[in-house]
């Protein structure tokens, strides 16, 4: 997107918000990262970067209507000046517009309510499994109806989204809307069980040919949090159907993630993760697995006890089933810092 246009848009939005909003919260979240990638005994990459620079405006128009507009400034070698800007969240939410307590309706580019991606807090530097393996993007254009079950027994989400993430816009977007259903149940404190399903079919709205005939993705999620242990499990699968000259073929992918986190003392999180992913089940030796180990050292906290300045250190090894491909090692050290303030109060 044109940077000047974005800056102009930001100025316009700010002026509109100052006029209309009761309060507008301005926040920033920055990820300064060092990454070293080694494969087959050679260093492939050894760089410092700004991986994320979120500039976020959250206007509160009434006690029931809020918005979020978020730009991401990041290091990129795609541009001459080495920096890129992209739009990540831009939506308005209407709370309790229907007579269901704590229900929320959002319109615009919101989180994708699927699997673990929507509440992924990047405890490991790596993305959530579905995001990492490009099954689902972390944000998408669409409409979402979300809410909470009574007495904290869980949450639900019903969405209709583009299904192709926030990086595609305009004519590049597949025109078939993708319905998504997400449910998370918490039968007892510390035990969360849930799942999500996304289904997309060509010709649902129009007969225009899309890149695929149908796509089905679903996931099962479990989380166990007892004392210092917080363990996440996710099973993910995707089926992708394409017709070529009248012959229909389907590609199935699946995998899982196990992520135990240990918090014995407040400043320190010990993180471990194991991912397994097979992009095409019908192919031999097509998969890979990733082992991650590291820690997060929380230096500063906000008034609610959420870390606002912390260092993440991860070692990550990806091993390929194809023995011709050598294991890939990544060492990442990241400083994350956030701040926020109300512009109008």
């Amino acid at each position, binding site marked *: 997107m044109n940077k000047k246009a974005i800056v102009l848009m930001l100025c316009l939005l700010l002026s509109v918000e100052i006029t209309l909003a*009761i*309060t507008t919260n301005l926040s920033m979240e920055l990820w300064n990262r060092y990454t070293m990638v080694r494969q087959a005994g050679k260093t492939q990459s050894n760089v410092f970067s700004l991986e994320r620079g979120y500039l976020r405006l959250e206007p*509160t128009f*009434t*006690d*029931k209507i809020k918005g979020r507009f978020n730009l991401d400034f990041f290091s990129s070698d795609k541009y001459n000046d080495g920096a890129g800007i992209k739009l990540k969240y831009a939506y308005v939410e209407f709370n*309790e517009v229907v007579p269901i*307590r*704590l229900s929320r309706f959002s319109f615009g580019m919101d989180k994708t309510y699927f699997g673990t991606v929507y509440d992924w807090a990047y405890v490991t530097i790596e993305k959530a499994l579905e995001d990492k393996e490009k099954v689902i993007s972390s944000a998408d254009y669409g409409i979402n109806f979300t809410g*909470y*079950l*009574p*007495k*904290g*027994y*869980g*949450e639900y989400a019903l969405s209709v989204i583009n299904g192709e993430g926030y990086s595609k816009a305009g004519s590049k977007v597949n025109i078939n809307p993708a319905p998504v259903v997400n449910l*998370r149940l*918490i039968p*007892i*404190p*510390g035990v*969360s069980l849930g799942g999500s399903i996304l289904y997309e079919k060509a010709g649902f709205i129009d007969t225009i040919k899309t890149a695929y005939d149908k796509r089905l993705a679903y996931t099962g999620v479990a*989380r*166990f*949090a*007892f*004392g*210092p*242990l*917080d363990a996440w499990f996710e099973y993910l699968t995707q089926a992708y159907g394409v017709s070529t000259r009248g012959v229909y073929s389907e590609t199935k992918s699946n995998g899982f993630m*196990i992520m*135990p986190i*240990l*918090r*014995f*003392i*407040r400043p320190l999180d*010990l993180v*471990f993760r*194991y991912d*397994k992913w097979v992009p095409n089940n019908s192919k031999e030796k097509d998969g890979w*697995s990733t*082992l991650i180990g590291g820690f997060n050292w929380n230096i500063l*906290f906000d*008034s*609610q*006890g*959420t870390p606002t300045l912390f260092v993440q250190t991860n070692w990550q090894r990806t*091993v390929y089933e194809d023995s011709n491909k050598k294991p890939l090692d990544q060492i990442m050290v990241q400083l994350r810092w956030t701040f926020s303030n109300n512009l109008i*109060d």
Partner: protein
Amino acid sequence: MKKSLNAIIKVSVLVGLVLMSSSVLFGAKNSVTMAGSTTVLPVAQKAAETFMDMHNEINVSVRGGGSGVGIASLIAGSVDIGNSSRSIKDKELKAAREKGKNPVGNIIALDGIAIVVNPKNSLNELDIATLKNIYTGKVSNWKALGGPDQSIVVISRDVSSGTFEVFGEKVLKGSKVREDALMLASNKAVATTVAETPGAIGYVGLGYLSEDVKALKIKGVMPSETTVRSGEYKLARPLYMYTNGAPKGLVKDFIDFILSTDGQKLVKEVGFVPLQPLP
């Protein structure tokens, strides 16, 4: 797949070892930490001071921040007690339960939300419908209520406060506060602004009533200890100290102290309503 299994076993063994070492890291604790509602703050501070005088070796730290902050801090595990002037929301309960927390609300006192006006105001009474009309902007001059020809200056708490939520639930009932209302961050700020502004109206917890502001009757009932406890006064609420599970150890000792006769005397001293009439 065999390699995957090996990796999982290795990670599990490591997790087990670290879990076993946890007992070394957790020692005996001689402090109680709490944060949250600015309404609960005076009673929490008074109780903390007295409790520490009684037990020299114990430290009780109290922070404000609002009910939302108190509950979020309890969920984050940064405090032992989350003080709140409202009951926990389903959204907060969900966040707590998924992190293995089980918030339990311990009612430690009752509070009436008093509607206050500048002492020079001749008005003595309002009903909830009129109050709503004032706060939504349908009535904007005291003349319409039999008072002087003077604009009403509406003062409210900020939308994140527990006091605002109770006011919203009991008075506004889904309507929006008029746009030119002053949204202030604490009960004290509301009381001070009302005291200094002719034509002002605001609402504060009973603990913040003083001679500097004039409390109004609601439907003929004055906010008082008796009317709040009996339920006659409608703008009333319980005050909570949320704990993770039933209170234990030092946290239980502290809450038991507040619930004791001596603790409830402190509740009364700071202007809140004891749960039972005091002897």
